[in-house]
């Protein structure tokens, strides 16, 4: 029996998986939730439609609740993350022409972030004009990840390349048309560009920052406070969707469901490979990437305030916000683990996060010195 009607916005990406499975596999209905999914065309629309209450919940970029709670969004409505939707799942894809230049500069095919970054640096230094690299939104994990990887590779993201914004479904086309030279985006859009021959996956999130937080389930704080039971029922459904999705035996079925035109509208085999971490290396080669996409294990679903603080540290690093202890507390407070912890109970997997490939240790307890270390090394990029 339907007790709650919940409308959720999503962007066509593999990591909309848990929302789509909660609906399609009947987990939401079992919990008395009539879950309506609305595909959106831009992250700005997701943000604004949650803020004005057209969406009750949404598939969101990890930094979005942080930005909204810090007052960096156009509409002043605090948003919280009540569940993590996945770890990993992004890839950095370059055009065929850029890959050729990078390969000539020594880029290996194994996605090694340090070696691929070094080759990209050589190419950037030799070029007369700046490469155009795309991310999906300013307040996106993709923006901060790409900036981190570039800076750690000795490429200044603000000075040495031009960063632009392109929505995920348009990335492959923009690359094919030569409007951008590379992009960082969630699957399947990197593999779609590879399949069309326009691009080559150079490195992946699972390699430059293993077991790292990605999309979240975002909700306006006021809606969560006014609808606690509906939200708990949805989280129970999402938890069951996460358990179901983490079983490799279900990947083919999940991929077929996601491939429908109302969701991703892309081939099921490409989506299925992304779920299983089989990533195209180009020329018909597929590499198995360990822990490429994690929808449940390793504490993927538990909102972790330390993850929020990492994104906050990067917002400070790149001057999106000025640091103060109060702002850091607001950022951490936008990730709320209590509800999901209660729902998962004994089934909560032990949390694990990896270190960045450059070995700079992130310690949330020493946030200020972490930011200082990164900013100092940014000044030394030459």
């Amino acid at each position, binding site marked *: 029996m339907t007790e709650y009607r919940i409308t959720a916005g999503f962007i066509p990406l593999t990591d909309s998986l848990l929302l789509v499975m909660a609906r399609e596999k009947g987990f939401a209905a079992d919990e008395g939730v009539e879950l309506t999914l609305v595909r959106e*065309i*831009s992250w*700005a629309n997701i943000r*604004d439609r949650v803020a004005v*209450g057209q969406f009750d919940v949404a598939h969101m970029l990890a930094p979005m609740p942080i930005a909204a709670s810090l007052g960096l969004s156009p*509409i002043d409505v605090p948003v919280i993350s009540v569940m993590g939707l996945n770890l990993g799942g992004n890839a950095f894809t370059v055009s065929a022409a850029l890959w050729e230049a990078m390969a000539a500069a020594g880029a290996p095919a194994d996605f090694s972030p340090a070696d691929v970054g070094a080759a990209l640096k050589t190419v950037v230094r030799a070029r007369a004009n700046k490469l155009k690299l795309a991310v999906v*939104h300013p307040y996106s994990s993709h923006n901060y990840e790409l900036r981190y990887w570039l800076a750690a590779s000795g490429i200044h993201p603000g000075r040495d390349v031009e960063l632009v*914004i392109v929505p995920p479904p*348009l990335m492959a086309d923009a690359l094919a048309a030569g409007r951008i030279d590379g992009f960082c985006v969630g699957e399947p859009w990197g593999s779609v560009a590879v399949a069309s021959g326009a691009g080559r996956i150079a490195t992946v999130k699972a390699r430059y920052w293993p077991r790292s937080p990605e999309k979240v389930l975002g909700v306006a704080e006021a809606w969560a406070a006014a609808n606690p039971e509906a939200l708990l029922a949805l989280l129970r459904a999402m938890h069951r969707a996460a358990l179901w999705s983490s079983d490799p035996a279900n990947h083919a079925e999940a991929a077929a469901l996601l491939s429908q035109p109302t969701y991703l509208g892309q081939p099921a085999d490409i989506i299925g490979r992304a779920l299983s971490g089989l990533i195209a290396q180009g020329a018909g080669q597929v590499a198995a990437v360990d822990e490429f996409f994690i929808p449940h294990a390793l504490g993927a679903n538990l909102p972790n305030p330390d993850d929020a603080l990492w994104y906050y540290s990067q917002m400070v690093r790149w001057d999106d916000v000025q640091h103060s202890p109060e702002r850091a507390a607001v950022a951490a407070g936008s990730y709320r683990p209590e509800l999901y912890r209660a729902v998962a109970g004994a089934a909560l997997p032990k949390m694990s996060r990896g270190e960045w490939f450059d070995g700079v240790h992130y310690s949330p307890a020493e946030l200020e010195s972490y930011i200082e270390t990164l900013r100092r090394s940014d000044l030394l990029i030459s």
Partner: protein
Amino acid sequence: MSVPELSILIIDENRIRASIIEDGLREAGHTRVALVHSVNEVARRITEILPDVVVIDLENPDRDQLEHFFTLSRALRKPVAMFVDRSDTAEIQAAVEAGVSAYVVDGLKKERVKAILDMAISRFNAFSRLTRELEEARTALEDRKIIDKAKSILMKSRGLDEAAAYALLRTTAMNQNRKLVDIAQSLVTAAGLLGSDI
């Protein structure tokens, strides 16, 4: 004291809707109104237009890109905020429901910009109403054609007059708790399959 006129940029892939908004703004006395239909055109013409207010439809797939562009662009000399007043939630709600977003150069008087946004919202709503009505009229016309076809099948195959054929369709629909047009469509499809001479 004369106030410099605001430069308004409308970005909409739907040329008809864009023209409707432009007309409204011109009627309200604005003469510096520019219409642009694509992102590339925005990048090319931004320094010439130097907008104070930018209106973008929410269906635009390039909205994230445009928003980022406006925050960075030096053509907009001051910071850009979306909507007139971050705390005016009723206005923002009305805008999002109408499917429109607006970006405003910081420091403009609220009342001046509010009138522009109000105009955009009401024109967007009028356009959706028009589209919906057109769609309904089109569907009604399609339905009529199918029902007429079904009637003529019944008239030929059962030797009924028009009124009796219509009454039969209506009774069947009522008995089966279905829409008249659905019964008519089933009949037309079945007749097609059976190769009846219609």
